[in-house]
């Protein structure tokens, strides 16, 4: 019985994966991934990892994928243009090679446990209680670090995606970014060296540019 379930879940996962990489519309790819994730959760259950399976469904398929859906809806991304490079053919080839190699590595290895069904079952294996105990005793430090990581990611995402000036359109924002003189010691070398040229090429600074070119900064150095 469990073998049948295994095969259904495995084939579902593989199909979902193939769907992710082949479907043209990114939205469909996201949905394929969701299917893949749920099949994977089933596989986890078969491996007696209850908490991980639940986390997979709730966090991964539930939250992360929803985020993906939002972004795909915002960004869009339609049909991909055809045409490409040699990687269109080489890519799958590399991947096949990788797969073969990994299988050989795993199955040809001397690990004896591979051919077994696993260690004898201990009551409570994979339950939230055991995982929680581990998190709060042996793996306390990674637990805390992981939360810090989440904080960093959240802050980073907010910073990356925010608007700068609030009310101006993006066009003006871009232009100002090019024209307004940089403070000293910022920018690339080319800009620092060529700021003078850009400054002199730009017309009178607009009224909005509050950072008026300071008369003493001639070259940025």
């Amino acid at each position, binding site marked *: 019985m469990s073998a049948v379930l*295994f095969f259904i879940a495995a084939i579902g996962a*593989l199909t979902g*994966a*193939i769907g*992710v*990489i082949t479907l043209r519309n*990114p939205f469909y*790819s*996201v949905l394929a991934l969701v299917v*893949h994730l749920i099949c*994977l959760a089933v596989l*986890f259950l078969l*491996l007696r990892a209850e*908490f*991980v399976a639940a986390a*997979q469904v709730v*966090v*991964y398929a539930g*939250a*992360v994928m929803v*985020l*993906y859906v939002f972004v795909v809806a915002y*960004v869009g*991304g339609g049909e*991909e*243009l055809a045409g490409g490079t040699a*990687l*269109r053919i080489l*890519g*799958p080839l*590399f*991947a*096949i090679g*990788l797969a073969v190699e*990994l299988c050989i590595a*795993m199955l040809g290895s001397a690990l004896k446990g*591979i*051919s*077994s*069904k*696993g*260690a004898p079952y201990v009551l409570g*294996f*994979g339950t939230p209680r055991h*995982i929680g105990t*581990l*998190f709060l005793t*042996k*793996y306390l430090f*990674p637990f805390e670090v992981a939360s810090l*990581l*989440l904080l*960093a*990611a959240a802050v*980073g*995402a907010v910073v*990356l*995606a925010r*608007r700068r000036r609030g009310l101006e359109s993006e066009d003006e924002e*871009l232009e100002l970014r090019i024209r307004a003189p940089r403070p000293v010691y910022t920018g690339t070398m080319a800009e620092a060296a060529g700021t003078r040229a850009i400054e002199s090429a730009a017309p009178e600074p607009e009224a909005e540019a509050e950072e008026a070119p300071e008369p003493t900064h001639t070259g940025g150095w």
Partner: protein
Amino acid sequence: MAIGWYLTVSALIFAIGAAGVLTRRNPLVILLCLELMLNAANLALVAFSRMWGGEDGQVFALIVMVVAACEVTVGLGLIVALYRRRLPIDVDELNELHG
């Protein structure tokens, strides 16, 4: 099923994810393929945890999930920023960081 089967599935999913990263041009889809690879790793971890009988692998898998979530967040933030700047959402066009 023997643990080896799960590991084979994991390897296959990993390879499929790698193929996707190498072939697709939409950064969103590339991120999705990265997720695939991470999930494959998760599966392997949980399988080994079952083999050894300790939950350490599962804890590791949970942390991997946290990391994946963070990475997705930041990656999607990047893509949103790209979109805001009216830049093409195509990794082949975004190649100015070159030598």
